[in-house]
């Protein structure tokens, strides 16, 4: 039976990476008895291995907790997990829209970070009740009072009631649960109105198909109902409604205010897009819930199998991943250098890395990845507009009137000692200073306009290294602006290697070309002849290096006739060669195609 609304609380946790969100979620599960201590695998909510390794949440989950409060009443608490990375801002906003309250978890030693602030503002936009939690107070460097002031000064929240907690030791867990009951408003919504349920995540299960996770905003959904996804109009019959405890458990129905999942033999996650509204086919709601948009990839790169005969395997793997991840796009790409592969679109660099790793780990594929690119808006001399996500697809210069590139507004939070280096970095990266705020005596927030291309180049790594890891970054897309952009080609042994071409700002072309050819000189093994490597803009060579020919490679004598060992050495040498791509007569290793990202860093 559905739960009475006044005993429901829907909330999420907002935290910076490493500030202890997953540990806190574990404590809440443990305290409410959703899991016994014995069943606890550390950090239950992050289910993918990758998430646990990286300590970040990629896929969201929702858990129903039963909590008997001090007032003697049993409450149902729905904890909706949110991803903690800028790539997934849209998903975060949909999760927040499914809640009435949020725990703001801030590390007592670190203070507020850019990503946290961005998500708090997002939560405030959705009118969420925010409960500050100052975590890790057991750490020697904890400064809860400083952090409390920072929360008040920076966000403008009343932090006098902030809960001091240690998710590690369990201190403060009960206070947090009580604060959720007391301060987060119960959901509202009419259980008898036409169904409106907000999808905040979906997964693909190979037995039951795509499974949306949703919050019922109005009405009710039962097993056997015919439902409609309002963005696509696709209709399905519900064969299961359930909640996570955290193990999935079927329930009779879910009514306004409740959170759960449904299964309806849906073949593809493209029907269960995050942000879409589920309604009843028989009695549809007049309009979908606000805020849905189709997520567009921001970053593109080419993925090619190292062994060309595994092209079909790569396509199968991408199709399978796409079942689970509607924001991943791909289409066939043909490269002269790399053969057949796919041009793939991602929400951001992290998303790209995750997909690559999953392809390699879960599908055993060896990949060559080309340097990531943003989407350029190319305005032709005849007024036509083309969106270009691949440098090789850039029209000839004489057909281009101008090129526009995506800009973001970036917020960087840093201890004030690093303001200088951060400003320098932003200048180097073609940034436009917008403003600077003091968050506290020690910390500063800087706002810059920056080209997205610079962010995906090496901005984040540079930011981390120039601020010894203390700065944090968040950004939002602002739109397209014209820039002086040129295509730079790389020639290896006098042949253009298309997979190495890139688009860069005219003023950076020389420096970037130098760094890239230098890096390639280190990465490409010596061949039996001299190999020139050149960077060229149009027909003008702007940088050149030469890999000298291999002169000597001989095995010493075979002691005691140990031929097997020699054979194995030779096999290893040959194996290494096989894993390279032959471009013309030159063997180029996998890493070379990502060299542009690492150029100038070694």
């Amino acid at each position, binding site marked *: 039976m559905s739960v009475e609304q006044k005993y429901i609380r829907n909330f999420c946790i907002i935290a910076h990476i490493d500030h202890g969100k997953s540990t806190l979620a574990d404590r809440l599960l443990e305290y409410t008895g959703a899991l016994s201590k014995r069943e606890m695998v550390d950090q239950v909510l992050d289910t993918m291995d990758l998430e646990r390794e990286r300590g970040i949440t990629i896929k969201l989950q929702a858990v129903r907790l039963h909590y008997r409060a001090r007032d003697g009443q049993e409450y149902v608490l729905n904890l909706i997990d949110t991803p903690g990375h800028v790539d997934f801002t849209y998903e975060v906003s949909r999760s927040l829209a499914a809640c009435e309250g949020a725990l703001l978890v801030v590390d007592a030693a670190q203070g507020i970070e850019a990503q946290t602030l961005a998500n708090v503002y997002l939560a405030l936009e959705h009118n969420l009740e925010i409960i500050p939690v100052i975590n890790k107070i057991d750490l020697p460097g904890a400064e809860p009072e400083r952090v409390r002031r920072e929360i008040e000064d920076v966000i403008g929240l009343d932090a006098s009631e902030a809960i001091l907690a240690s998710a590690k030791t369990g201190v403060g867990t009960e206070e947090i649960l009580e604060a959720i009951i007391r301060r987060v408003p119960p959901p509202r919504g009419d259980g008898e109105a036409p169904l409106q349920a907000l999808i905040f995540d979906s997964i693909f299960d190979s037995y039951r198909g795509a499974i949306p996770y949703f919050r019922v905003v109005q009405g009710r959904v039962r097993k056997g109902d015919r439902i409609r996804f309002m963005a696509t109009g696709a209709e399905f019959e519900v064969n299961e409604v359930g909640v996570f405890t955290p193990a999935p458990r079927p329930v009779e129905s879910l009514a306004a205010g409740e959170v759960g999942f449904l299964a309806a033999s849906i073949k593809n996650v493209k029907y269960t897009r995050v942000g879409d509204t589920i309604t009843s086919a028989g009695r549809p709601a007049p309009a979908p819930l606000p805020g849905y948009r189709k997520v567009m990839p921001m970053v593109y790169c080419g993925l090619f199998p190292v062994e060309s005969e595994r092209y079909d395997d790569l396509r199968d793997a991408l199709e399978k991943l796409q079942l689970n991840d509607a924001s991943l796009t791909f289409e066939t790409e043909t490269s002269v250098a790399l053969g057949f592969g796919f041009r793939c679109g991602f929400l951001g660099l992290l998303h790209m890395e995750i997909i690559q790793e999953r392809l390699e780990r879960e599908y055993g594929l060896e990949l060559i990845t080309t340097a990531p690119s943003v989407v350029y808006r190319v305005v032709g001399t005849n007024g036509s507009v083309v969106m270009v996500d691949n440098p090789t697809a850039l029209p000839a210069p004489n057909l281009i009137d101008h090129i526009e590139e995506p800009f973001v507004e970036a917020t960087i939070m840093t201890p004030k000692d690093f303001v200088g280096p951060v400003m320098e970095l932003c200048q180097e990266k073609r940034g436009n200073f917008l403003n600077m705020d003091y968050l506290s005596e020690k910390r500063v927030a800087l706002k810059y306009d920056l080209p997205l291309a610079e962010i995906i180049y090496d901005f984040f790594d540079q930011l981390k290294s120039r601020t010894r890891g203390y700065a944090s970054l968040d950004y939002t897309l602002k739109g397209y602006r014209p820039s002086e952009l040129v295509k730079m080609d790389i020639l290896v042994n006098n042949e253009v290697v298309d997979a190495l071409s890139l688009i860069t700002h005219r003023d950076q072309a020389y420096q970037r070309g130098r760094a890239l050819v230098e890096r390639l000189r280190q990465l490409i093994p010596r061949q039996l002849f001299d190999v020139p490597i050149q960077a060229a803009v149009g027909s003008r060579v702007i940088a050149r290096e030469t890999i000298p020919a291999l*002169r000597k490679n001989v095995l*010493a004598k075979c002691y*005691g*006739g140990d031929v097997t060992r020699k054979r194995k050495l030779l096999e290893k040498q*040959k194996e290494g060669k096989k894993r390279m791509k032959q471009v013309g007569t030159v063997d180029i290793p996998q890493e070379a195609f990502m060299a542009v990202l690492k150029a100038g860093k070694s």
Partner: protein
Amino acid sequence: MGIVPQAGFVNKASHIYIHIPFCARKCNYCDFISYPEQSPEVMAVYCHRLEEEMELAAGTWQPGPAVTVFLGGGTPTILPAGLLERILVAVERNIDRQPGAEVSVEANPGTITLEKLRVLRSAGVNRLSLGVQSFDDRLLKAMGRIHRRRDIYQAYHLARRAGFANINLDLIFGLPGQTLENWQATLKEALALQPEHLAAYSLQVEENTPWGRLAATGNLNLPGEELELAMYQEAREMLAAAGYQQYEISNFARPGYRCRHNLTYWLNLPYLGLGAAAASSWQGERWQNYSNLEQYGAALSAGQLPRAEIEVTTPRQQMAETMFMGLRLLAGVNLQAFRQRFGKDAREVYAGEMERLLRAGLVEVQGYHLKLTERGLPLANEVFAAFV
């Protein structure tokens, strides 16, 4: 090539390698199986085991009389004269020896005495291979060798006095801190001694050695490829001018003095290896004995052959080995012999590879032989890898 057993792949005659895994101390570049500073008792027990293995192996494989016997190491001459004699007598007792067989012993100039040399001679040893490496005391010390320049002269003259008429000197170039002049000086001194045979190896830095670890941290001052290449060419020129014929990548001999034992490896002919860590190639199988002395001994006391890994080589592997070992010889691989042995034409089996290598100028066909070119010689690995 008259001394080379041609195409005799069912050759009754056998080639025997015996490994002595002991040395005074481990050199900084050495990753061969050798245990430094062992007691005379350990050595005596080992020799006893070797005798057991010979008996067992002779019974199992029934090799024909030995045409070559090679005592290698480690440092065979670290053994007391009595043990050396026992081993050589045991070979003759179990396997027999063909008249005129080549019997070689490797020796470290720091471990030689006239007594030992006389015992070796009277036990039928007719070839001595001296691990000279360099005539530069500074380099010898850096390598961790126990001998010095004067020991080389002493050992060499003792060997001559004991009646050795076939002496090889092993030299190494490309040593850390070595210059071309230094290498030329070593070559000059070696030539002045007028040995019958010379080997000039380029230093291989192996991972699990003191030098390997230094190199990994960038703290080994290696001469670099260009200089190494220059040293190699210098050796080839100087030795050729002095009447030594290069017959293998690293080996040079006066006419009639090629090492027949090593030729069996290069021609991919069968051989039996005895002793810890020794490798064998016999009737389509390759194996290696246990390297660990306890394991080696335990197998033998249980009456079993101490074979650690046995690999049945496929015809494809045998062909590959015949190619990449044979190409080490300057004469190259005899394509007719290849055809007789495998029933296939190497030019067809390796059509693509040979085409590529010929075009790159790394190999050439001369008569019935496929051989490395002048250009291919220092790049031999690039050639070999094509055949595996």
